[in-house]
């Protein structure tokens, strides 16, 4: 379900270590041991973060051998972003206009002092 995926995406991004991992991967694929290096946390802890990112579809872990390089997968992030913003904005604007129109009707109604039944 798309909203589950969006939830997983945001949950995955809600941790600064995971965001830092993604930033690192944006520069190219990386092995787990390389990723762990700057963080001074244990390898199992890094692996836990990678699992969350993988479940959210944000990284892809190669099955090859020991190093298991990780790669950034951008699709879930794009879902969370630009297109939705534009369309949401467009429709919000339309509903602002609807709101204005309904207010106009209400004002006219008051001015004429009669309660019109909505036709």
């Amino acid at each position, binding site marked *: 379900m*798309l*909203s589950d995926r*969006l939830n997983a995406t*945001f949950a995955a*991004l*809600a941790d*600064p270590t995971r*965001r830092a991992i*993604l*930033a690192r991967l*944006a520069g190219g694929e990386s092995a787990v041991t390389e990723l762990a290096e700057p963080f001074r946390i244990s390898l199992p802890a890094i692996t836990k973060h990678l699992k969350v990112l993988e479940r959210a579809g944000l990284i892809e872990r190669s099955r090859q051998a020991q190093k298991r390089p990780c790669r*950034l997968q*951008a*699709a879930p*992030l*794009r*879902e*969370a*972003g*630009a*297109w*939705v913003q534009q*369309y*949401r904005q467009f*429709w*919000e*604007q*339309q*509903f602002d*206009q*609807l*709101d*204005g*129109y*309904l*207010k106009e*009707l*209400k004002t006219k109604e008051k001015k004429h002092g009669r309660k019109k039944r*909505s*036709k």
Partner: protein
Amino acid sequence: MGAKNAANEAVATQHATFVIDRTFDAPVARVFKAFSDMEAKARWFTGGSKWKPIERTFDFRVGGKETAVGEWDGGAITDFRATYYDIVPNRRIIYAYDMYHSGRHLSVSLATIEFTAEGDRTHMKLTEQGAFLDGYDDAGSREHGTVELMNRVAETLT
């Protein structure tokens, strides 16, 4: 990602869902009428002052179609084409629509609008699922754009 169309151009699709909740200070029948009556709808469903309508059609029934084509200052043309799939008076409207921008197919979406009367006011909920189509992506800066996007998303979480 990675698929190619008949002209061997890259084809990519992005999917998303969004929800908009609004409350209007009007009874539900009046709000529903703003969606179901051609004249009422034309009073608010427009591109605004910078948009000049070229074509509008409205056939509000299941299977009926609606179009709204207009030109912006500067010459760009937007084309909204919808088909209605479900209508429950004062309760629900479901439609699917295509959006074109100057001839380019931007998206195909499914939208559900649910109306709930709250005394003299109306709660409206729009749930929209869209397939946003290739061509409007700035392919060259996709990865860079993604990192920027991620940073912006992260900012909203901290």
